[in-house]
């Protein structure tokens, strides 16, 4: 084995390479296969199928997606169940130490290994959707709780100018207080401060709450040399406002909140620093590996040296001959550098600095809110989406009915029950 140094060296190097490749391959092929999903075209059914097949770390993501689709299709019970499940999971994850989250901070684990809870804008949207359902259920104070929580979620922005600057959560917070005979003026003032458009005063006698969403929300992508920076992108929405016509009333629905704006004004996260460190580690070890492997090549080229020696020839005369002999020092240095370089490359390859780009993809970009008074009965309504020039987008016009139940004046039960508003939720998004 040791008789032929140069062959031995190349064999060992080749063997090391195969070993490294084998280790990398065997170490990385443990990701579970998702069972096949038969798509039906129904976003709720398909979303539930994907939820069932998804790894545990992605459950909240799928619950969010299914909830949004269910709410748009009027499947309130489904939306309620998914949002409650997701919010309970998120509350547990962000308030208790999580082993998975701790591991995601490690150099050799990806951020996307942690259970998904969503960026603050996604968690705020989960709160907003659930608040609509609480409003429908006659629990405006629980809706208000979610709006207060939403502003808290948005409170830790890097630039405090953008902290807690959602408009609808503050406006609804105060509106719920006004409906419950409380004082909502502070919340209304906060909402007005954050809003780009004039906001109406509260009308506690209004019995219809309208929330309209349109445009595609933000997408996430990884930027930076190592994909360690979380960035957001969004398509330009054709619809930039809407108009609701019902019972002789025409209500302008300006965009109160822009979800993309909220996503992009958060600033850096604590996790971004961790990912930055991971990226630096990956870059440094990769460079060290390159240098070491280059050194190994140079050393390998110098594992033999020529030595001149005086020998006595067959004729009895001394003569100088040149011999090629092994340079054991250079050989060991070549092997050491090669192994060290390989190790450094392995470490660099194993480091996972990429930002987590899992996203709640069926969110809207714009949100509009309105309240109005309608008498009992069924009222045909038309919702028109408008482009930047204020022109209608006919293909997106929606017609529907707003049903206001008549109170039972003679019923003790009806008199005892808390008054319940009608909450209308309409979306331009199909899924």
């Amino acid at each position, binding site marked *: 084995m040791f008789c032929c140094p140069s062959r031995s060296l190349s064999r060992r190097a080749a063997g090391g390479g195969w070993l490294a490749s084998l280790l990398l391959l065997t170490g990385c092929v443990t990701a579970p296969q998702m069972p096949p999903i038969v798509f039906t075209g129904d976003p709720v059914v398909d979303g539930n199928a994907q939820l069932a097949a998804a790894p545990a770390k992605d459950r909240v993501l799928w619950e969010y997606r299914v909830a949004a689709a269910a709410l748009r299709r009027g499947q309130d019970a489904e939306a309620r169940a998914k949002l409650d499940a997701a919010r309970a999971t998120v509350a547990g994850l962000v308030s208790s130490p999580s082993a998975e989250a701790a591991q995601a901070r490690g150099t050799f684990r990806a951020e996307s290994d942690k259970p998904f809870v969503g960026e603050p804008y996604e968690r705020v949207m989960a709160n907003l959707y659930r608040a609509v359902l609480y409003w429908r259920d006659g629990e405006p104070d629980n809706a208000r709780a979610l709006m*207060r929580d939403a502003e808290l979620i948005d409170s830790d922005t890097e630039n405090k100018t953008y902290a807690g600057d959602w408009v609808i959560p503050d406006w609804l917070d105060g509106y719920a207080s006004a409906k419950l005979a409380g004082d909502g003026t502070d919340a209304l003032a906060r909402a007005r401060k954050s809003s780009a458009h004039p906001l109406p005063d509260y009308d506690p006698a209004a019995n219809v709450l309208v929330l309209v969403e349109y445009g595609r929300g933000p997408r996430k992508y990884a930027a930076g040399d190592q994909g360690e920076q979380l960035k957001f992108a969004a398509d330009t929405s054709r619809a930039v406002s809407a108009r609701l016509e019902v019972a002789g009333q025409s209500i302008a629905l300006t965009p109160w909140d822009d979800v993309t704006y909220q996503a992009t004004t958060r600033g850096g996260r604590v996790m971004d620093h961790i990912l930055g460190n991971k990226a630096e580690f990956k870059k440094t070890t990769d460079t060290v590996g390159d240098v070491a492997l280059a050194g190994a090549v140079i050393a390998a080229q110098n594992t033999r040296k020529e030595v001149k020696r005086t020998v006595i020839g067959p004729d009895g005369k001394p003569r100088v001959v040149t011999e090629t002999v092994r340079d054991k020092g250079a050989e060991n240095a070549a092997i050491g550098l090669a192994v060290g370089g390989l190790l450094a490359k392995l470490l660099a390859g194993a480091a996972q600095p990429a930002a987590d780009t899992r996203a709640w993809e069926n969110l809207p970009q714009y949100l509009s809110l309105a309240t109005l008074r309608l008498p009992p009965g069924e009222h045909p309504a038309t919702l028109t989406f408008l482009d930047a020039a204020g022109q209608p987008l006919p293909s997106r016009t929606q017609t529907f009915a707003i049903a206001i139940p008549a109170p039972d004046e003679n019923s003790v039960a009806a008199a005892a029950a808390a008054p319940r508003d009608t909450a209308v939720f309409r979306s331009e998004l199909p899924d």
Partner: protein
Amino acid sequence: MNLRLRSHRNYVLYASLAAAASLAGCATSGVQNPAGSPVVEMRPDERGKVVGTGIESQDLVAVTDKMARKILATPEIASAQTPPRIVLEPVNNETRFTINKDIFLTKIRDQLIEQAAGKVRFLDRAMMATLEREQRLKQQGLVTATADPNVVEFRGADYFLTGSLQSITTRTTQGTSDYVVYAFRLTDARTSEIVWASSAQIKKEGLEDAAYR
């Protein structure tokens, strides 16, 4: 020979290190506690492993137990000639936590019923729709009645028991702190006087993992 042996040992060492590094780096599907945790039965007033800064079962038990005992000691209840009739009104939630609005008052009611031994009565307003339907059936003669169904026998309330949950939340880089006040009151339905009021308070704080900040 010695040199050869030492070199051989080095290769084994390097190979082991490389193997360890690659395995550690690629263990992307490693799962902590893959078997999960078996279900453990706990007392509702016990603080479990899964905790948050929100309103939890141990808070509910502590608060309602305290409130029920205080209500029973109220002179209007303790020395009433006839059992006062109480209606529960939903709690007003002013915190940032969603709650099951009925659970606090239901728990207080159940404890009062258990401990009061008939000293107080509760009117089941949640059942009114069902009771009215039954009354109509009796009035129409579709079901039997043991008393005149046209006589109103639904009781009126002597007292209303309700409450509110209020909170102050502070969030800094050190964590989130939630101070929650659970306030309850008993209001005389005839005079609007508050005959009893009490509150309990709980404060919690925590900091989420850096992976979520």
